[in-house]
């Protein structure tokens, strides 16, 4: 690390300029507003006669919402390859509650977040002691374990045939309605994570990524915060899973595989890990790009593999690192 990147004590005390803004900061607020106008205002009108593309965008929006959770875990310096598992937990919670007990969707949705978050906290508490590749390996196994658990769930989960005919939420029955729901969900998620990233909590998370021991030594309760970050991540996954359960109206143990968990990670990387918007950019680019591939769609996994390698070789900091003005922020964060 070069000398000039070390902040002076004064700079540390006054903190980065963003802290002076209450909430999420003026730049971010403008960005979010612009995104809201495009997502809720422009796109539905432009695509009103094309339900297929509305569905594609719905997919992209909820996938980016789920990836925001993975981003939070990246922010504390862990690689989570279990997000598919938590989406599955959320999806099954909604599917079981609404088909067996007739619970309305708007009650199921928060309950799915809670169940995924609770399972996340319970499992995260011991395994978050692991770092780096060790944590990645355990979470990868977790994706498999959860899939097997639902496969062997007997009467409750209905084994490999899954749960079908999950009722649609009240008031949402057209592709446009689903799209608007997804867009609002994404905007709320983005607002929440932006708020988190620019708050004191966000700085605590980043300090943990840089050096957990050092963070602990200045009085941060590291084990408490990492469980908090993980269960937040899992709750976002649970909400996404709940959405997909009613969107596709079914859920199977095969709905989420290791591949899906890896894709969530890929979206974050492709967009750029240093930016809250990274997972959103990554997911939209990949999902829409995939639709434009047409004939080549059967090579999806192969192309994702090549893209992943190319991304690491050429663009290790993601698409958003090409944005000239924002690179300095990232550097300042890394050097701080």
């Amino acid at each position, binding site marked *: 690390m070069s000398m000039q990147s070390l902040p002076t004590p004064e700079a540390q005390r006054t903190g980065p300029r963003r802290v002076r803004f209450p909430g999420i900061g003026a730049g971010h607020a403008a960005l979010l507003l612009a995104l809201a106008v495009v997502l809720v205002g422009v796109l539905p009108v432009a695509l009103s006669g094309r339900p297929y593309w509305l569905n594609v965008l719905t997919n992209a929006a909820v996938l980016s919402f789920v990836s925001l959770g993975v981003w939070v875990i990246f922010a504390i310096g862990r690689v989570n390859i279990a997000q598919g598992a938590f989406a599955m937990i959320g999806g099954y919670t909604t599917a079981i509650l609404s088909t067996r007990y007739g619970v309305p969707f708007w009650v199921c949705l928060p309950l799915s977040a809670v169940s995924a978050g609770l399972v996340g906290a319970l499992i995260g508490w011991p395994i978050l002691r692991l770092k780096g590749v060790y944590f990645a390996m355990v979470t990868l196994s977790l994706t498999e374990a959860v899939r097997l658990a639902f496969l062997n769930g007997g009467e409750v989960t209905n084994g490999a045939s899954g749960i079908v005919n999950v009722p649609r939420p009240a008031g949402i029955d057209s592709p446009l309605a689903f799209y608007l729901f997804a867009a609002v969900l994404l905007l709320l998620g983005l607002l929440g994570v932006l708020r988190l990233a620019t708050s004191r909590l966000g700085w605590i998370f980043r300090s943990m990524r840089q050096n957990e021991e050092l963070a602990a030594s200045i009085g941060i309760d590291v084990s408490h915060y990492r469980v908090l970050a993980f269960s937040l991540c899992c709750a976002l996954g649970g909400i996404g899973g709940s959405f997909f359960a009613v969107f596709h109206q079914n859920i199977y143990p095969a709905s989420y595989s290791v591949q899906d968990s890896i894709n969530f990670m890929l979206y974050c990387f492709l967009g750029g890990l240093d930016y809250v918007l990274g997972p959103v950019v990554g997911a939209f680019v990949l999902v829409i790009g995939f639709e434009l591939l047409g004939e080549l769609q059967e090579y999806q996994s*192969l192309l994702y593999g090549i893209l*992943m390698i190319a991304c*690491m070789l050429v663009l290790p900091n993601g698409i958003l690192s090409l944005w000239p003005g924002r690179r300095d922020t990232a550097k300042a964060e890394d050097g701080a």
Partner: protein
Amino acid sequence: MQQILVNGVVLSANYALIALGITLIFSIMNILNFAHGQMFMIGGFMVYYVYGVHGLSYGLALATAALVAGAIGALFEIGLFRRVKRIAAREENSMLLAVGTALLLENGALFAFGEKQRGVPPVVGGVYRIGDAFLPANRLLVVLVSLALIAALLLFVQYTKPGRAMRALAQDREVTCLMGVDVGRISVLGFALGAALAGLAGGLLVTVSGVNAGIGTAVSTKAFIMIMIGGAGVVAGSILGAVALGFAEAIGYALLPGSVTYLLIFVGMILFLCFRPQGLMGKPWG
């Protein structure tokens, strides 16, 4: 009961090869080789084509499996990992690169070899009887070859000059540089050797259970379980992990229905990691 023990020994010996390969790469390069299972699969297909389709000798087929997998490993190191390790700002980058190579190999294999399950005839016929248990001669061959390869690898790492350089590299990269070791060359050698072990394991196991292009992820997951139980980067630990997983699988498949075995193995592993996050033999971290 005796049958379970025999099956456990067969599985353990083969799994030890997989675990040793991934441990070798991990300790030398500090890279978790996500493509390990895919290299295993490619080794299996090499034996299928050389021995099964063209009917050449099994020894030649195994050598091809080792060479092809080893060459892929060496190419990955030279072409990809070396560069990414140099330019990467975060350690996650090389991890995602490893995931990318796994996807690439798996889907490349899908197009090259098709999606059918392939098997080869047993190399040697006949069945031995040990007490109440049956041991097909072919499985005995797999065990013996695996044990011989493990012994050869351990001797190589312990007593030869490149082997010593590898161990040094695993201990401290910078100091090894200072001692005049050509770190780049040893890294390539280590990666190739680890990959070749995966290819050999695949080439051996194809005679027992066959191979298809999609088994990679399952094999990699098994490799991860083994090194987590044993302790990542420790040779003795990886062998212990292989024995633990081999016997757990043999017992589970004999007593429980299908996929419940692996569910229990996962649950058991996570519980085990709660109490001993560094594995049986690993150094404590974090």
